[in-house]
C-alpha cells in the first residue's frame, strides 16, 4: 500500500462535477504534480486532501489511516497557499513558529526550530520583519518554511510560484526541488504551468475536466502522451491524421514510409510529432513545405512551415551548420518514424 492513496474521489458542487472519480497513489518522499488547465479541478482535489472540502465520494488514506473525515487541523499537513496567506500581524519568525506553538512546543525550542527552517529557505536575516516588508519571493519562502517546520506528513502546494516573475520563478523551481529532496517530505503540487511540473516532479498527473488523463514520469508524459490533450498540453506538438496500409502511411495525398513503425493496417489514425524532432533535409525528405514564419529565441529557432499535412512547428537548436533558412523558402523535412506518436482518439464529446 502506498503512503497516500486517493481512491475514487469525486466532488460535486450541486450539479457540477468538479472532480470525477480520481484515484492516485503517492509513495513516501515522492513529488507529484497535478497539472492541468485552469478549472480542471486541481485545487478542489488538493483541498480534499487538506480537509477543507469533503469528497462527495471516495476515500483518502494516509500512511494506513483513513483521513477522509478527519478535521483539517488534525491532519498535520503543511500547506503553501497561492497567495501565501502569511499572518500580516506577526513577524516572519512568529509566522513560522505558529504551527509549533499550536503543537505546544516550548518557546525556546520553537524559536530555535523556526530559525532553522528559515535558514533552510535562506531567510535567516529577515526573521524580525513583517510580511508586508518582504518581496513576493521572500514571502513565498516564509510560507514554505512555515509549512515545513511542523514536519508535515504531506506538503501541499497550490500554484506556489504563479505570483512570481519569470526569472524568480525559475530560481524558485530549482530551489523548491532542492529543498524537497533534502527534507524528503512527500509533496503534492498543483500547477497549470507544464514547464514547472516537468522541472520539479517525480511524477505528473495530467488532469482535464475533473479527471486524471495520465500519470507518469515527466519524460514519459512528454514523450509518450496517452491522449491528444496530454500531448498538446505538455509542450507544443504537431498532429495529423492518416491511414495505414501495407506499411505505408497515407496522409492527404502523400505517402510516408513508416517501415520501422509497427502498425497494423487501419483506418484513420492520429499522430503527434514534437517540433524538436523534425529536421531540415535536402535529399529524400518525408515531406516538403514553405517556411511561413521564423523566430529566433537565442538558444533555438522556431519555424512555421506550411505543408500538405497542415502547418508544422519546428524547433531547431542554435547549433546547426546548414545555411540560414529564410522565410518563403521551400524546405524538405524529415524525422525518424519512431518519433511519431500514435495517440488514442479522444471521445467524440471532446472533439
Amino acid at each position, binding site marked *: 500500500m502506498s503512503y497516500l492513496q486517493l481512491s475514487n474521489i469525486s466532488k460535486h458542487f450541486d450539479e457540477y462535477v468538479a472532480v470525477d472519480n480520481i484515484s492516485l497513489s503517492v509513495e513516501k518522499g515522492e513529488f507529484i504534480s497535478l497539472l492541468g488547465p485552469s478549472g480542471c479541478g486541481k485545487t478542489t482535489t488538493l483541498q480534499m486532501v*487538506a480537509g*477543507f472540502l469533503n469528497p462527495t465520494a471516495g476515500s483518502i488514506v494516509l500512511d494506513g489511516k483513513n483521513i477522509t473525515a478527519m478535521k*483539517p*487541523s*488534525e*491532519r*498535520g*499537513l*503543511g*500547506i503553501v*497557499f*497561492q*497567495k501565501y*496567506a*502569511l*499572518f*500580516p*500581524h506577526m513577524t516572519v519568525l512568529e509566522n513560522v513558529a*505558529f*504551527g509549533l506553538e*499550536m*503543537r505546544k512546543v516550548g518557546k525556546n525550542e520553537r524559536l530555535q526550530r523556526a530559525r532553522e527552517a528559515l535558514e533552510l529557505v535562506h531567510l535567516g536575516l529577515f526573521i524580525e520583519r*513583517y510580511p*508586508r516588508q518582504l518581496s513576493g519571493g521572500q514571502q513565498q519562502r516564509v510560507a514554505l518554511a*512555515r509549512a515545513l517546520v*511542523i514536519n508535515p506528513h504531506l506538503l501541499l502546494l497550490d500554484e506556489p510560484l504563479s505570483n512570481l516573475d519569470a526569472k524568480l520563478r525559475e530560481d524558485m523551481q530549482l530551489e523548491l526541488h532542492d529543498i524537497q529532496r533534502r527534507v524528503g517530505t512527500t509533496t503534492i503540487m498543483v500547477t497549470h504551468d507544464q514547464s514547472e511540473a516537468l522541472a520539479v516532479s517525480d511524477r505528473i498527473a495530467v488532469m482535464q475536466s475533473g479527471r486524471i488523463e495520465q500519470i507518469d514520469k515527466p519524460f514519459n508524459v512528454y514523450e509518450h502522451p496517452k491522449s491528444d490533450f496530454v500531448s498538446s498540453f505538455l509542450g507544443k506538438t504537431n498532429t495529423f491524421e492518416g491511414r495505414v496500409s501495407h506499411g505505408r502511411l497515407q496522409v492527404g495525398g502523400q505517402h510516408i514510409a513508416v517501415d520501422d513503425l509497427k502498425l497494423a493496417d487501419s483506418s484513420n489514425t492520429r499522430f503527434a510529432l514534437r517540433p524538436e524532432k523534425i529536421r531540415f533535409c535536402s535529399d529524400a525528405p518525408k515531406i516538403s513545405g514553405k517556411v511561413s514564419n521564423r523566430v529566433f529565441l537565442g538558444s533555438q529557432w522556431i519555424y512555421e512551415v506550411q505543408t500538405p499535412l497542415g502547418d508544422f512547428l519546428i524547433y531547431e537548436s542554435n547549433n546547426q551548420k546548414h545555411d540560414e533558412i529564410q522565410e518563403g523558402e521551400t524546405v524538405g523535412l524529415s524525422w525518424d518514424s519512431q518519433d511519431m506518436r500514435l495517440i488514442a482518439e479522444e471521445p467524440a464529446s471532446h472533439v
Partner: protein
Amino acid sequence: MSDLQSKRTPWLLSGPALLSYALLLVVPMLMTLVLSFRSFEPMLGVQDEFVVSNYIEVFTDPYFHEIFLRTFVMSALTAFFCVLIGVPEAYILNRMRAPWKGIFLLMTLGPLLISVVVRTLGWAVIFGREGVISETIQFLGLSDGPVSLMYTQTGVLIALVHVLVPFMVLSVWASLQRLDPETERAAISLGASQFTVMRRIVLPQITPGILSGSVIVFALAATAFATPAMIGGRRLKVVATTAYDEFLHSLNWPLGASLAVVLLILNIVIITGYNRFFERKYSQVFES
C-alpha cells in the same frame, strides 16, 4: 500650462467645497466660541462683554461634573457594547452565503435610513410603563407593578447601542473585506482550533476596524441629542441635552455655548489621544 496656473487649479477646484465648509461649519463654530465668552443677565439677556465666568461655572459646579461624567461613562459603555455586538455581527454577516449576506447586511444597515427620532420612539414605546417589556415582566410574575426603563441609564444605553451599532458593523465589515480568508485556513492547517483562529488570526487583523468603529460610536454617543432627550428626558441629562436646555429654557446662551465648546474639546482630546495610542501600537504592522 504655466507653473502658477497648475498651482492654482487645485484651489479653484476645491474652492466651492471649502467655501461652503467655512460658511456652514467654521463660522457657526466661531460664533459659538465667541458667544461662550459673553456674560448673561437674567433680566437683560446676553451682554456684550468678555468674561470667562461661564467656563468657571462649567468647571466648578458639581452639577455639570456629574453630567459630563455621565456622558463619558454612557458613551464609553455604548462603544463597549457596540464592540461586543457589532464585531461578531459583522463577522457572521461576512461568512454568510450569497443571497443572505446581502439581505442581512441591508437589514443591519437599513435602520440608518430611518430617522433617529423614529427609531428612538420605538424604544420609548417598548420601555414605557405599558410597554412590551413591562407587560412581559408582569405576565411572568417577576414584578408586581409596572416596570419602566424610561428615564433610566439602562434605557438610554440600550437605545444608543441600537442606534449606533450599524456604524461599528460598517467599520468592522470594511476591515473584514481586507482580511484574507486563506490566513484562517493556513492557521487551521497548522493545527489551530476555531477559537484560536478567532483570537490569534482574525481579531488582530480587524483590530484597526474595531478601534475606528469605537471612536466613531463614542463620538456619536457623546454628542447624541435625540436619543438621550427622548429616553433620558430632563431626569437623566447628558451634555448635549443640558446645553439645549440652557439655550431654550434658561435662555442662557453663553452657558450653553461654553458647554458645547467644552464637549467638543473633550471629544477631540479623547479621540486623538486614543488614536495616537493605538496608531503607535499598530503602525508597524498595518501601515501601508
